């Protein structure tokens, strides 16, 4: 079928803004002594997170009889943590990352991620740096609130202590159809349905997540315990996610196993755990905070675009 979709979906002006944004990010990082690195997109191990699906491929080596099964990275997090453990100091990377099953107005199966790590920072200092990055780009400094405060304000329920049943009832009132919804699903639904659209459009940094949403963040044993994780929202979109990074290899191994157990229970493939990351954590990860930021979504905010297609040269449908 011959069609006119050989053309780019972004205008030249927006592609120029994209180039300018990448240049500004690199200058910002270099000026602060953060070293640009590149790590492999092909990986023997993979993300175990049950909500992130890796694309798989095969590598044939000339001297090997069997092909090696590999995954395309969904984020450069694990090899960058190995660089941190090897003592590289503050590092950043701008990388194309790949995620299966994701496509929509805000999603593409491949997108550009800015990921950076700051030894000696906690998540609050990293949030300060994100605010400075946004201000350098001409955006206002985002308001900061805890997950609990914004969740309570817009749902009337405490995300840490409300019984599952109360979350379930509220979710049903708001039109959730899900059999066997667990607590995380209910929190994700209520947050994306009622909180995200009501966060200040000019920007919000939400921090101190429920421990069930810790991912790779440290957990502080406060009352209630919270995960040292934050997310940046601009114009009602999730733009960045950051952690005060978990450095405990025993706890990390436990979370990988828990992820894979959840994968198995949902009928998803169990992923190969990154033993090299665990070995690096064993040898010692410097105390650090790190964040991942979606470059296309930030560009959407800067250009007032409504769809991710408007800020990439060729979306997946035209790739």
């Amino acid at each position, binding site marked *: 079928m011959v069609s006119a979709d050989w053309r780019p979906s972004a205008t030249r002006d927006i592609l120029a803004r994209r180039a300018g944004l990448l240049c500004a990010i690199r200058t910002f990082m270099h000026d602060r002594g953060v070293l640009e690195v590149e790590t492999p997109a092909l990986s023997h191990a993979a993300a175990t997170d049950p909500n992130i699906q890796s694309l798989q491929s095969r590598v044939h080596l000339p001297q090997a009889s069997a092909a090696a099964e590999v995954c395309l990275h969904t984020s450069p997090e694990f090899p960058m943590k190995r660089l941190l453990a090897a003592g590289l100091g503050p590092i950043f990377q701008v990388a194309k990352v790949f995620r299966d099953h*994701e496509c929509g107005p805000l999603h593409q199966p491949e997108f550009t991620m800015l990921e950076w790590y700051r030894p000696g920072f906690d998540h609050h200092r990293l949030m300060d740096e994100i605010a400075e990055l946004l201000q350098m780009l001409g955006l206002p400094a985002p308001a900061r609130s805890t997950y609990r405060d914004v969740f309570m304000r817009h749902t009337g329920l405490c995300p840490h202590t409300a019984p599952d049943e109360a979350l379930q009832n509220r979710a049903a009132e708001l039109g959730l159809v899900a059999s066997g919804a667990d607590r995380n699903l209910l929190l994700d639904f209520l947050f994306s349905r009622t909180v995200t659209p009501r966060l200040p459009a000019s920007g919000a940094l939400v921090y101190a997540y429920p421990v069930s949403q810790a991912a790779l963040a440290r957990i502080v044993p406060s009352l209630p315990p919270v995960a040292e994780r934050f997310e940046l929202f601009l114009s009602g979109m999730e733009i960045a996610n950051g952690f005060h990074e978990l450095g405990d290899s025993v706890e990390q191994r436990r979370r990988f196993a828990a992820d894979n157990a959840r994968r198995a229970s949902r009928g998803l493939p169990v992923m190969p755990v990154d033993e090299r990351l665990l070995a690096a954590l064993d040898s010692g990860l410097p105390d650090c905070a790190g964040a991942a930021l979606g470059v296309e979504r930030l560009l959407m905010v800067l250009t007032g675009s409504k769809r991710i297609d408007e800020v990439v040269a060729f979306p997946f449908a035209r790739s």
Partner: protein
Amino acid sequence: MSSYSTNEFKPGLKIMLDRDPYAILENEFVKPGKGQAFNRVKVRNLKTGRVLERTFKSGESVEGADVVDLELQYLYNDGEMWHFMDPKTYEQYMVGKTAMGDAAQWLKGEELCPTTLWNGVPLVVAAPNFVALKITKTDPGVRGDTATGGAKPAKLESGAVVKVPLFISEGEVIRVDTRTGEYLGRAKG
């Protein structure tokens, strides 16, 4: 009836929700970075026309609704039920008051009416968008009367009452848009 997974959702798909048939109007992929994916859909209840928003956990499956859109020809009303026929198969259908809704007031016979069948039974019948009907009763126009905005009520042979310009008289055939009840002009011929 087959069931559909959320990844088959698209506008126009007919599904069952809370025992009623619905049509999907919009389907949006929503996914928090570290969370599960959802399908946020706008759906229209095919019985009531009401539009709702529902969010499905991605991967859920939903029963499909056995809904068919076709055109049926209006035959007659027996005082209680309206009788229609499929002009292709000659199959006849009886339609009750609820499914007829406002359509009945525009029908005099033989019109082709867009109809939605659910499990083989007419669920909603609509009148054709445009009809030509004779005026059976209207007051004679009064010259210079502007108090009514230059319009007067007129009763049509099918039973509906519409506003017509003052110069229109009884016995004339006019064209009406049934979706708005608006007078469009004198029928030609």
